[in-house]
């Protein structure tokens, strides 16, 4: 009897609990409520020595520009920052996370610098605000002139921490500029700062390409009267003409392992693709067709080449498999497609298409599907090249009359100008991260 009573009481209690607990169910959240991460970027503060507002300004500006281009973040308005923004706080115990939570920040960047003579030391930190913990931090030591470079390196580190893949900002852009009066090879930071002239051929230099290590450049120059292929070591400055066959020696591209070079030569009459050794020695003729075969571009695995051919009439993109020499047509929708660039991730090939007398940039999967138009003018947008992480494209634009370089995300958003004033700039190439 007692057992029955207890059992009844238990059942009643269970029933009561059931009545005030929601039943278990699956709730699906199929998209984030915010597609950008709320970021608080505080001003870098002087840690020791005299304040150097110009240095702090450069650090903040370069970092903000890089992170803005990345497209991941929504910057919180610095006007709304509370007292913690005025404190250095390089350790999580020193940061008042509650203030940042109040502002809705999800990640917080804090930093401090000290200038002693020409030496600049920067301490930079990335914090996870909801969890109140340090995500990444690094001390950078350099010259005061390196402030922007330090900011680029930290931006790369932030992307590495938040996406699992480092950014491409601490790299260089090689390009052709007429700033000196001739078409010469130049090098500059990804944001257009610190331009340096690398050649003095006083002729026409074209089509640069970085070696996989980023220490060498291939380019074509008319210095000796003929379009020949040159190789240049960036740090030593030494330069060699590696291919000077009769006719064209153009559009040299290092293979992904850096052991060979694909280029267009017209030594046999028709411009065809050839495989060369690093020193220019001829290894193999790759194409034999009626019409021009130019602009080779390697797949990341080094097994295929995308190139432009007019074998069917108008210029179109084709893909050549090196193992068996098989060739297939990639693009079929345009009348004039050129300058293919295979993404380092291997998933897409960017190219230019002329329509209505104007060039725009497109991308397509290597199997020929999912063609997308990335740009819609104005002007001619040409020579797309990928960033080493495949997130961005750099290209040239003649909108406004003068040729400039532009950078945009791989989906065509966030386009911005990167070259400084002075002369035309074209034929960009993005180096690996140094």
């Amino acid at each position: 009897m007692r057992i029955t009573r207890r059992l009844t009481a238990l059942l009643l209690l269970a029933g009561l609990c059931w009545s005030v607990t929601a039943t278990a169910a699956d709730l699906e959240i199929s998209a984030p409520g915010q597609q950008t991460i709320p970021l608080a970027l505080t001003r870098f503060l002087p840690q020791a020595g005299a304040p150097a507002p110009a240095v702090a300004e450069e650090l903040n500006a370069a970092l903000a520009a890089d992170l803005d281009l990345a497209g991941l973040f929504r910057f919180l308005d610095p006007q709304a920052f509370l007292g913690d923004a005025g404190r250095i706080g390089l350790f999580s115990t020193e940061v008042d996370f509650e203030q940042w939570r109040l502002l809705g920040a999800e990640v917080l960047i804090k930093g401090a610098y000290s200038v002693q003579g020409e030496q600049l030391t920067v301490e930079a930190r990335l914090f996870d605000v909801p969890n109140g913990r340090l995500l990444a931090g690094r001390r950078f030591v350099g010259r005061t002139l390196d402030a922007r470079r330090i900011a680029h390196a930290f931006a790369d580190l932030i992307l590495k921490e938040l996406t699992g893949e480092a950014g491409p900002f601490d790299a260089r852009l090689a390009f052709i500029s007429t700033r000196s009066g001739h078409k010469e090879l130049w090098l500059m930071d990804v944001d257009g700062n610190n331009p340096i002239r690398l050649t003095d051929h006083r002729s026409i230099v074209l089509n640069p390409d970085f070696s996989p290590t980023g220490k060498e450049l291939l380019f074509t120059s008319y210095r000796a009267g003929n379009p020949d292929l040159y190789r240049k070591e960036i740090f030593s400055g030494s330069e060699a003409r590696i291919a000077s066959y009769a006719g064209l020696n153009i559009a040299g591209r290092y293979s992904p392992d850096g052991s060979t070079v694909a280029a267009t030569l017209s030594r046999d009459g028709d411009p065809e693709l050839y495989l060369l050794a690093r020193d220019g020695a001829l290894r193999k003729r790759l194409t034999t067709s009626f019409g021009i075969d130019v602009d080779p571009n390697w797949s990341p695995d080094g097994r295929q080449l995308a190139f432009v051919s007019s074998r069917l009439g108008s210029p179109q993109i084709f893909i050549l498999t090196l193992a068996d020499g098989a060739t297939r047509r990639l693009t079929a929708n345009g009348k004039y497609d050129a300058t293919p660039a295979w993404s380092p991730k291997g998933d897409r090939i960017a190219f230019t298409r002329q329509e209505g007398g104007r060039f725009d940039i497109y991308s397509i999967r290597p199997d020929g599907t999912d063609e997308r138009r990335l740009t819609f003018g104005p002007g001619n947008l040409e020579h797309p090249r990928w960033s080493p992480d495949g997130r961005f494209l750099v290209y040239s634009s003649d909108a406004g009359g003068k040729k400039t370089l532009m950078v945009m995300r791989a989906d065509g958003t966030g386009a911005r100008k990167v070259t400084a004033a002075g002369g035309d700039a074209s034929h960009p190439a993005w180096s690996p991260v140094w």
Partner: protein
Amino acid sequence: MTAVRPLRPSSGLHADPRAGRFLGAYLLSLLLHALLLLALTGAWRGTVPREDKPPVYYIDLVHKPVLNPQAGRPEPRLPEQPVPTPPAPVASVEPKATIPAKLATTGKPASKTADSHVSDALRKLRDEQALQQKFAALRQAQTVPMDTPVGLPDAKGNEAGISTNVYVQATIQQNWALSPYVLGDPAKMARIEAWVRITYGKSGRLESFRFEKESGDTQFDESIKRALVKSQQLPNPLPVRLEDVRLIFNLKQLNVLAELRR
């Protein structure tokens, strides 16, 4: 001599003629009252008086979790609109312009310019009328009835608000920040998914969460953790304890949007 009335049974209704008149008046009054009642309630027409449901004008879908949310429609139901009549087709033969009297008397043909002016004016008038008709139809279509009930489409309760599950789901989703650029690869975005078991107390406090299935992408999982930490205290208490609910995080909606953008 006093006349003696015969005795009549006092209990009979017809015993007294005054009593009969009173009864008649009473019945008449009853009948009139009944008729009045019928007239007022409308029952004489054979209809049953209906209890009108009070209209609901507004429910805060985010800040009011309730146990038994009421039904409604996600969007107001619009009254059926008559299809606007298309403008009359323009006659293929242009109407003739009235010939000015002076020209008619002189016998000279009417100038082409005058004809074209009139026909242009008529065409403009017709176009304007057609446009006005379209505007009127649009205005009518955009008029939302004020007593439209709003609530959850599948709810069956009677409380103004949303269900606990939907409230928790919406709050966590709002706190989940993840850029598509974090993952980058569309193929990866299409298949990525993580399952998390959560328990919320009645106070709206997140009591526990554990990953039942990780996505395999550190950044994706980290973003979910941040969203849950941000949602550890809901803005409002819950009507019930939410125990061991499985949250499924994926990017299906983003993929659909990406497809649509192409």
